[in-house]
């Protein structure tokens, strides 16, 4: 990872990935980033970062109960903008069972070409929701289709749980000035 000063934009957060956090951070990103990147790149970033934040909020094995009695996942996120790329990195705890499922799912999606991804997207649109999915099962497919980059994952063992690190890269056309 390069020195912070070489980044055009850097953001990090560790905490509860609640719906209110999503609303607040969307406002911040819109304010902070709209002058840095083209509109279409911002829209792509917005799509990916929302999917990744909701993913941690729904599926992190570490949950926190909020004052309104709603439960959300705990994790962390980094957003790094360089000359050529946006990187979105999230970390959250998962179970061993989740590790196998996520590995299988992401490896499969990363191996598909554009036509295969489109076919799978359409198939998932019309299938019954996966039993453990709140996102309709198409979030990762759409991230890969829209960014045209694979999703990178790795795992770290911590006590009885596993830390999932996920990275999505968006190619950027940075505007002058």
């Amino acid at each position: 990872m390069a020195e912070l000063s070489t980044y055009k934009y850097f953001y990090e957060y560790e905490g509860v990935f609640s719906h209110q956090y999503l609303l607040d951070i969307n406002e911040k990103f819109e304010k902070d980033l709209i002058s840095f990147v083209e509109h279409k790149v911002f829209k792509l970033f917005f799509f990916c970062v929302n999917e990744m934040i909701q993913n941690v909020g729904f599926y992190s094995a570490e949950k926190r109960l909020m004052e309104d009695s709603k439960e959300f996942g705990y994790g962390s996120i980094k957003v790094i903008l360089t000359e050529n790329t946006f990187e979105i990195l999230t970390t959250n705890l998962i179970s061993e069972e989740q590790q196998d499922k996520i590995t299988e799912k992401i490896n499969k999606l990363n191996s598909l070409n554009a036509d295969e991804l489109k076919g799978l997207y359409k198939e998932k649109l019309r299938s019954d929701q996966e039993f453990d999915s709140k996102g309709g099962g198409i979030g990762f497919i759409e991230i890969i289709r829209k960014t045209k980059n694979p999703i990178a994952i790795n795992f770290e063992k911590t006590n009885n749980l596993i830390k999932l690190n996920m990275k999505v890269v968006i190619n950027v056309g940075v505007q002058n000035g």
Partner: protein
Amino acid sequence: MDNLILAKTKSTLGVNFNASSGECVLEGSSFPENTSDFFKPVTDWLIKYMLEVTGKVTLNLKFDYLNSSSIKFISDIADRLQSYHNAGAEVELKWYYDENDEDILEMGQELKEDINFPFNLIMK
């Protein structure tokens, strides 16, 4: 049958479904805290309209942003309208997009591929 009107919020769509005219509008951004909870009354209203009113449906979709689970619900609504059309009803879908919003345009184009009732992509 009552109209269905829901005010737009930062993360949920504005809804204006008219039971007399069949003019239905969904507009704004959709990344609800619970997507099923938001879309259930919308889908239920349409089902009731198609069963009881049995009139023309014109669905106007004016999206700024849809998360993946919302896309799935919009696709489900389009499928229900397709079945209604197949049963002989008059159905029209108008998908609005901004000139510089390729993402929303592509989403509409892909949905249109599987629909054979009047489906118009309209630049705002």
